């Protein structure tokens, strides 16, 4: 079906490319330890881009029937912005495993067992356990008028768990998440369970929140407030628009020497891995920050053409919009210390495991001020208990400059991964 569509589009426009994505997802939802519902979702979307009279147009449709799609893409091109865009030719693709037959063949019963295993391990008196198990099978097919025709399959297994413990008139919510292209092994599940149980134990005692400037350790799962500004700042589009505070720092030391950030599309079995991007550009690892030095920004075909650089292979397509630059797997390089070793030198400080309201306001500027949703006080190098009334106010760029230590375990949240990060001199407001 993709062949005739690109042929007709090629006859009616100067150039065209089309992406067809399919997905089928089985989701099992366990509430309060019990299987509550099973769901199945299948989706097929076709995204067509045309270049007509030097202008870009795009249109999308779900389902099998693509009638009218080319007309709508041409209508979009009539008002589109002029741009010279070269679609890529066919090229050899790097090797990366994104599809695991074992995960694809897993029966619902096997997935139910996974959920029950997590619930058994996490159940404690006075705790409520919610678990979601998800299995996705997908395919990506691309074709363009330069003769490119390529595709690949993906599989994905996601496990997420949440333990809620009521403690007087307070509740502690501890969550974690495991995602990959293959079925997770027992060690990975055990590590997730151990981490969650440890955090629940730490939260048993409530202690007063500290106030002032102090060392703060962010767990890998709570680093979003630090990394979200960078995710925007490393978009080639932000550079083009003059909105990236890092644009003028390429090649300069902008962060602590221990900080390295890269986009990693070629890691086997990770959620964001892929041999090519959704515009047909072969995938490659890309360094964004190397030992604190700003290196590369990410581009899709359109932003690359506008910036007169090459695409870095970061085009992502959804059914209805034009391609946008997006990361594959965004990874902060880990350090060499365990969490215990990381906090050992801290006399008085905070371990932050979750902030409330991340992503509000002017994110790319880096300034944030968030209440701590889940946090623990560190006294003499050890966790002394949970703090319930504290807020962290800081600037992400400044914090990443004052980072003094990194954990060795990567915590994956979807397709981004970070270790725990210890930062000096963070402003904490306790109540």
């Amino acid at each position: 079906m993709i062949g005739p569509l690109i042929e007709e589009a090629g006859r009616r426009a100067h150039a065209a490319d089309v992406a067809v994505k399919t997905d089928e997802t089985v989701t099992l939802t366990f509430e309060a330890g019990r299987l509550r519902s099973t769901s199945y979702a299948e989706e097929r979307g076709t995204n067509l881009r045309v270049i007509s009279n030097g202008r870009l147009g795009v249109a999308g449709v779900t389902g099998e029937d693509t009638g009218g799609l080319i007309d709508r893409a041409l209508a979009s091109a009539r008002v589109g912005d002029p741009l010279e865009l070269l679609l890529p030719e066919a090229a050899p693709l790097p090797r990366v495993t994104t599809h695991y037959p074992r995960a694809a063949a897993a029966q619902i019963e096997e997935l139910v067992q996974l959920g029950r295993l997590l619930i058994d391990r996490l159940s404690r008196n006075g705790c409520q356990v919610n678990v979601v198990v998800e299995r996705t099978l997908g395919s990506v097919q691309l074709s363009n008028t330069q003769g490119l025709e390529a595709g690949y399959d993906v599989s994905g297994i996601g496990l997420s768990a949440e333990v809620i413990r009521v403690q007087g008139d307070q509740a502690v919510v501890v969550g974690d998440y495991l995602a990959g292209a293959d079925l997770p092994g027992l060690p990975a599940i055990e590590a997730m369970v151990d981490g969650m149980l440890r955090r629940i134990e730490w939260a048993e005692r409530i202690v007063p929140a500290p106030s002032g400037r102090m060392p703060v350790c962010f767990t890998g799962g709570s680093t979003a407030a630090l990394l979200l500004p960078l995710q925007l700042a490393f978009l080639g589009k932000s550079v083009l628009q003059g909105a990236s505070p890092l644009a003028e720092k390429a090649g300069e030391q902008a962060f602590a020497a221990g900080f390295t950030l890269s986009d990693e599309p070629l890691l086997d079995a990770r959620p964001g891995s892929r041999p090519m991007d959704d515009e047909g550009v072969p995938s490659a690892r890309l360094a964004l920050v190397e030992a604190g030095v700003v290196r590369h920004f990410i581009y899709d075909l359109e932003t690359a053409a506008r910036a007169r650089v090459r695409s870095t292979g970061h085009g992502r397509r959804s059914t209805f919009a034009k391609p946008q630059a997006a990361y594959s797997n965004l990874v902060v390089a880990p350090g060499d210390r365990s969490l215990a070793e990381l906090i050992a030198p801290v006399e008085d400080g905070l371990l932050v495991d979750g902030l409330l309201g991340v992503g509000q306001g002017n994110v790319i500027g880096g300034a944030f001020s968030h209440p701590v949703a889940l946090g623990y006080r560190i006294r003499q190098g050890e966790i002394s208990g949970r703090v319930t009334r504290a807020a962290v106010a800081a600037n992400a760029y400044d914090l990443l400059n004052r980072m003094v230590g990194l954990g060795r375990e990567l915590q994956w949240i979807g397709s981004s991964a970070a270790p725990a990060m210890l930062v000096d001199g963070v402003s904490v407001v306790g109540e």
Partner: protein
Amino acid sequence: MKNRLFDALRASRADYTEIRLERSWATTVAYRGRRLEGASAGLDCGGFVRCLNRGRGWGIVSFTSIGRLPSMVARAHEMSLSVPVDEPIRLAPIPVRQGDVRGDLDGDVRGIPLEEKQALLERLNGEMFGVDRRIVDTQAAYHDEVTEYWFGNSDGVLIHELRPEVSLSAVAVAVEHGIIERGLESIGLRRGWISIQAREELFLRAARRAIALLHASRIRSGTYPVVLDPKLAGVFVHETIGHLSEADFLAQNHEAGALMTPGRRVGSPELNVGDDGSAAGRRGTLPYDDEGTPTQNTLLVQNGVLVGRLHSRETAARMGQRPTGNARALSFRHPPIVRLSNTYIANGKGTFEDLIRDIKLGVYACDALGGRAHLEDYSFTSGYAHMIRDGKVAEIVKPATLAGKLFETLDRIDRIGGDFRWNEMGGGCGKGGQAPLPVGEGAPHVRIRDMRVGGELA
């Protein structure tokens, strides 16, 4: 479509079956600066099936190939059978209605060429640059949608609707001496092409605000008497009492259940809060929810006391109450879950001037950039704010972050104005991976005795 739906319902072997079929035409136009980011139209089609059997859980299926409806019904039935449950799932009864509701399309957006929509937005975007030379960047967006919607269930409910939607949003960025400020405005309506005309003022306001904020100082962090404007008060009540009144959350979360005990006094006798999915012409308004229940006005707080909760058929049966018409789904891709519709603080007494007259030093917090709440904790960022000095609105100050504990804050509401307004903001609400769901909010000006305001950032 109707026949397809009928046949599939009749063929289902499940005890309860419900089907939604949707076809949605949408157009998006976006400008960044003076450049068109994109203008395109999409067609989104698909179906949703949910089956329930005695002693079993939900089997839920969604799909984009409507031709596969019969096999999808069979699959949903099988999936339901694969989930044994200890505690039976029951559905509270609803009136069996057959409805055909063609919402006022108000100038059907499907008949307007893409060029006209692009030209409209180009002009509005240009208005922002015209305000001042210091406006260096803008974002402007136009979105419209018409969804043809069929709902049917095995109890005999059958509904056909045409649901229109249209929205505009404006962001203006002003720069001077290295200071960058933004002004944001948006409007979202369940209307069409006619109602979105002559909206220049919205874009001018965004640009003027960005300019005004350039020379605004920051609020000194601290505790102040705070007056919330109707927009921010509406967002506040939606994010806090609104979400805490959703019965699915209360049933799952014991702590929330304990916080929200019916009969608990949460505020002064002047405080009345509700959620009204049937309010005329609002963004969260629909004749029926996505389980086929007629929408209604549900009181949540009456004279300062918690009195109501928002229900789906399932949560209503579990708590022995009646469905309130709040089971909503973002699209055919999602199951209906308990959602807010139009959440409001009802009118009190007095003018805005009455509320600020005796404040020596306070904050007038307006508009919302964002807000989150988790149980009792909340954190909001206003779009902008003014200081109140000696009973008068004084200088504009930069956006303020308001954070605190909900019930302490409600207890400190000491005046509720008589100038109720519904918001018409765009955007929407997110829950359980379903966003943005169109909702409405409304409130008068509300005064809070002591509120923690964070203005200075490190």
